[in-house]
């Protein structure tokens, strides 16, 4: 669980340097190479089929979805299912909720974790080791086992069905403090010393030295925090009871009953619910792939 690579000597990950794996993947045609490529593509198709089938169903008129034997492509594609789903209104509300919650979780998590990581990496104060040990132990605590007492606590605080109720417990990510501290430990102190000579306070050093120097890893963990918050099911499911406060995953699960057995609508809402992050991922794929390598690991 260590970060083995440093920012300064990071290997550009996605496109490998020129002669990539010259042994196995020469441009020259080989039977093995082609077979591997075909296998890779077949596996990719297999992985995409469920998504395409959902899209396919969502474009069918409702009666066609339950016809036996099944039809492969819609006979007359229609956007009716999408229209009904959007007109029911809730989906837009949940989209807004998910966006607010995910942004709050991501920024707050990064904010408090960066500060804490800096505190543990660069400052000394009485009890520092004990506190850091406590936080490391916190990595072992699965949030799932806290749902019951945490809900009781939220009831007491009056935070059930509020954004803060959804957000705050998700901000507590001990593993993030751990990963960032390790990363900060690897940054040479020379940069800070230079800044200090210029009269910068420690607060300013955090934001004008440490953060810029760890930008790639912050982007990577930021993206994963965002995906995690957007997709988090269990906690928002527990702490929201009012459908107008639900996030997309919870809302879709709770209110699916109101769509009854209309599969085209169910699939349309699934497509709409999944699309935002698919787009985000398509745009940021390089950061995601590289981030995993950088962070060495989240988990």
């Amino acid at each position, binding site marked *: 669980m260590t970060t083995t690579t440093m920012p300064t000597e990071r290997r550009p990950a996605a496109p490998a340097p020129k002669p990539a794996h010259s042994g196995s993947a020469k441009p020259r045609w080989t039977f093995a190479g082609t077979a591997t490529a075909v296998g890779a593509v077949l596996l990719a198709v297999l992985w995409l089929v469920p998504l395409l089938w959902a899209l396919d169903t969502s474009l069918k008129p409702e009666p066609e979805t*339950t016809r036996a034997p099944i039809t492969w492509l819609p006979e007359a594609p229609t956007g009716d299912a999408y229209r009904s789903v959007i007109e029911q209104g809730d989906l837009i509300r949940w989209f807004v909720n998910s966006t607010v919650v995910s942004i709050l979780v991501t920024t707050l998590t990064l904010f408090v974790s960066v500060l804490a990581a800096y505190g543990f990496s660069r400052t000394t104060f009485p009890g520092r080791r004990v506190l850091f040990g406590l936080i490391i132990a916190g990595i072992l605590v699965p949030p799932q086992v806290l749902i019951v007492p945490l809900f009781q606590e939220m009831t007491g605080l009056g935070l*059930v069905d509020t954004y803060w109720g959804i957000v705050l417990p998700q901000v507590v990510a001990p593993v993030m403090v751990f990963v960032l501290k390790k990363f900060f430990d690897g940054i040479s102190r020379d940069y800070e010393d230079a800044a200090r000579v210029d009269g910068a306070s420690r607060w300013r050093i955090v934001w004008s030295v440490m953060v810029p120097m760890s930008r790639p890893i912050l982007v990577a963990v930021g993206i994963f925090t965002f995906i995690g918050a957007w997709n988090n099911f269990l906690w928002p499911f527990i702490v929201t*009871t009012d459908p107008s406060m639900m996030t997309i995953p919870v809302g879709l699960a709770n209110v699916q009953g*109101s769509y*009854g057995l209309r599969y085209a609508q169910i699939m349309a809402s699934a497509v709409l619910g999944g699309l935002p992050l698919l787009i985000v991922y398509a745009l940021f794929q390089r950061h995601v792939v590289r981030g995993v390598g950088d962070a060495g690991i989240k988990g």
Partner: protein
Amino acid sequence: MLPNSPPFRPRRRAVLGGMLGALALTGCGTLGSKPKVREWNLFGGGDGARLLQIHDQYVAEHPDVAFQAHTLAWGPPFYTKLAMSAAGGRAPEVATMHMSRLKGFSPTTMLDPIPVDLLENAGVRQSDFLPATWDRCVIDGKLYAVPLDQHPFVLYYNLEICKKAGLLGPDNKIKPVMGVTPFLDMLRAVKETTGKYAVSVDTTSPWRLWWTLYGQLEGEFFSPDGKELVIDDAKALEALDLIAKLASEGLTPRSANYAALVAQFSNGEAGLSFNGEWEVTTYQTAKLPFSMAPFPVVYDVPKFQGDSHTFVLPHQAHRNADDTKATIEYIAWMLKHSVEWAAGGHIPAYQPVVKSQEYLDLKPQAEYRSVAPNVFYDPDAWFSGSGAQLENESAAAFSGIATGQATPKSALAQFKAATQKLLDTPSPV
């Protein structure tokens, strides 16, 4: 105000309400001055669609009320959410609840009592309900629920298929059958006609069918004090054996969930369907030639598993008088318009509607209204009721019977053990 309602008391309430309203107004400014009614319900499928229409009409007639309705997934998800929201203090103003769930929901802490005077002001009185129905809503001398309907387990039949099978009388209605043999003969005739199944049933939760059959055998469940399980093994097994026989003869599917139940009746794979009466709208929308009748009296007495939907006020930490008044008026409005609700299949609880010509003219919805007094509610316990644990235990135990994975005997043993375990669990309410 209605002409014969007591003239004096409400006025004081009204003044108080007005003052509180004024306070709220000054507190919240002009935007928040509309009373708000947030309603949660558990109606999916045809019911859900019907409710949406009725709510549209309510909203159109009440521009002065900020109304918001939400449908949550039926059964445990709905009731769990409702309980958590009542515990959390930000519950909606009003929610639907099965009558059979009322006592187990801890009404004294999780619900707010319904102000009877406000209800009377809105024109709804105790005398508008069957006494047995009303009495079930009163706990510790306070009214905690207002019944909307009753919904028995019924028989749906496809007119074309049943005609071919020779099951319709001259009036084009299905000829009533009584007794096991005529019942099975009817099903076999349908199966021959469809070439696939006779009946579409939900094999994953056979509770309604089993409880109907067990009730028709006059089986007992709990002792009168509710402390002991006194299930009659012979009768329980007789009903389960029949369910197993239906599946093994291919009269019902070996494995079908609720979605399949609806689909198989819709696409004609089955000519009959055993289900609650709430899918009328679905089949009407699909333009299916069908009608409905009381479930056959297969055994000794007419009993039909069923329940009632009621309106309750979930507990709120800070209940607003204006909102409550608007909420009670909403409930009253819904009862008075329950003929539209009845069009979705349910038998209205509000008697003025039951007696109305408008309701009697509803076909096939008025065809089975005679069963109302024979609706057989789930056993009385904190873990019982529609979608509650007892039903889930029965689903877990009995769903293997149709598939052949479990014998009626082993399924009954599992169900009894599970029920005993629930009885032994200290009640949390």
